């Protein structure tokens, strides 16, 4: 019996659907493979070219304003630096006396933000510096005020993809500056930024500053994260959670700094 044309067309559609689903599942199963990372790099690099003319026009309009702003910041930073130098040399002398090891040193790679993709589920930035410029996977990222922004999760030769602090998968070890308690900061849908697993008896109060703890190779110590806004009233077992207001304003980020650990 001959197969009719509509039937053939339906089989063709179903065949194509099965092929598309199979390919998609294959891609999902190969997440993290070098081939897929290369494909991602290719798409990211291609996208970077779209931003070249936009950035050029933007720069024309903002360059003078940026220059004056930077001049002001430079003066303020210079004064702070002078203060810090005194404290730092004293701190170094005391550390040497006590026999502490030297802290890790970081360099920074400045990068312009090409695009940001954000919702309250996943958040990322694409920046115009890639592996050709020395960016490596899982490098920490801060903003112009050295406040926590995120970490690099994909690198191509010309661009890098930065996972922001408000991504559902982002975790960072932080320290509350006054009480010196340590916990893990993550973003939750309902409560915002939370430090979990803080000891029940930790003397944390609203307004305290929160910085990175330095317990990882990604972020050095003392990167400013934000301020404690609320302490959870419900105490579960022997730990409590602390709500944090993040210092970084993601809506205004135009350039970021990628931390590169010294060899």
């Amino acid at each position, binding site marked *: 019996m001959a197969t009719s044309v509509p039937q053939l067309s339906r089989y063709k*559609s179903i065949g*194509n659907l099965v092929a598309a689903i199979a390919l*998609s599942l294959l891609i*999902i199963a190969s997440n993290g493979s070098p081939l897929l990372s290369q494909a991602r790099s290719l798409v990211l690099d291609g*996208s970077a070219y779209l931003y070249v003319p936009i950035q050029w026009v933007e720069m024309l309009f903002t360059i003078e304003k940026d220059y004056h702003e930077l001049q002001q910041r430079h003066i303020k930073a210079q004064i702070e630096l002078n203060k810090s130098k005194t404290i730092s040399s004293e701190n170094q002398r005391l550390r040497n006396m006590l026999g502490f090891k030297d802290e890790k040193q970081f360099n920074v790679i400045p990068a312009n933000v090409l695009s940001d993709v954000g919702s309250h589920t*996943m958040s990322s930035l694409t920046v115009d510096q890639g592996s050709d410029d020395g960016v490596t996977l899982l490098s920490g990222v801060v903003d112009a005020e050295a406040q926590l922004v995120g970490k690099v999760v994909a690198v191509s030769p010309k661009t890098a993809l930065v996972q922001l602090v408000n991504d*559902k*998968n982002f975790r960072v070890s932080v320290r509350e500056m006054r009480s010196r308690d340590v916990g893990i900061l993550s973003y939750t*849908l309902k409560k915002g930024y939370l430090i979990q697993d803080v000891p029940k008896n930790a003397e944390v109060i609203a307004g305290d500053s929160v910085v990175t703890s330095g317990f990882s190779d990604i972020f050095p110590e003392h990167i400013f994260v934000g301020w404690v806004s609320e302490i959870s009233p419900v105490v579960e077992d022997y730990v409590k959670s602390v709500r944090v207001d993040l210092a970084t304003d993601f809506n205004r980020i135009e350039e970021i700094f990628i931390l590169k650990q010294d060899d």
Partner: protein
Amino acid sequence: MIDILKYSFLGLLVLIFQWMLGDIFSIYGSIPSFLVIFIIYVGLTHSQLQAMWLGFVLGFMIDALTGTDMIGISSLALALVGYLSGIFHARIVRIPVIVQYLLYTGFLLVFFILTVMVSHQDSQWATGNIVFLIMLPRTLYTLALLSGIFILLRVGAE
């Protein structure tokens, strides 16, 4: 052939629009998906096969451009939506308007269930929160935009 090129080019423009300017349309963190609207449009007015494969390619590209940890999930979702919308290709005008909108809602739910629910299966967030705070708002927002765009383009009108 020209049609394939035309829709591929249009798809690329929609992808760039979604990627570069999607945030402008954010309401309380809810961003609509213009890509799914485009794929439904191609499926309903043009060709099922093209909608499916365009959905697959554009889905892969948007996953690669965003920070998702599950590349390929949008390919799967958009290809499926392309197939489903293509079933009603050329027949959509004969379907009552209410049913048309129920179909659009169904297509969007398929897309958002796959992209939002599956990609959040490993998160610590409660399912109710993901459904009511992310999936449903995004579905309704995208449906509202889809309705406006389809009315302008006279999709589904006799």
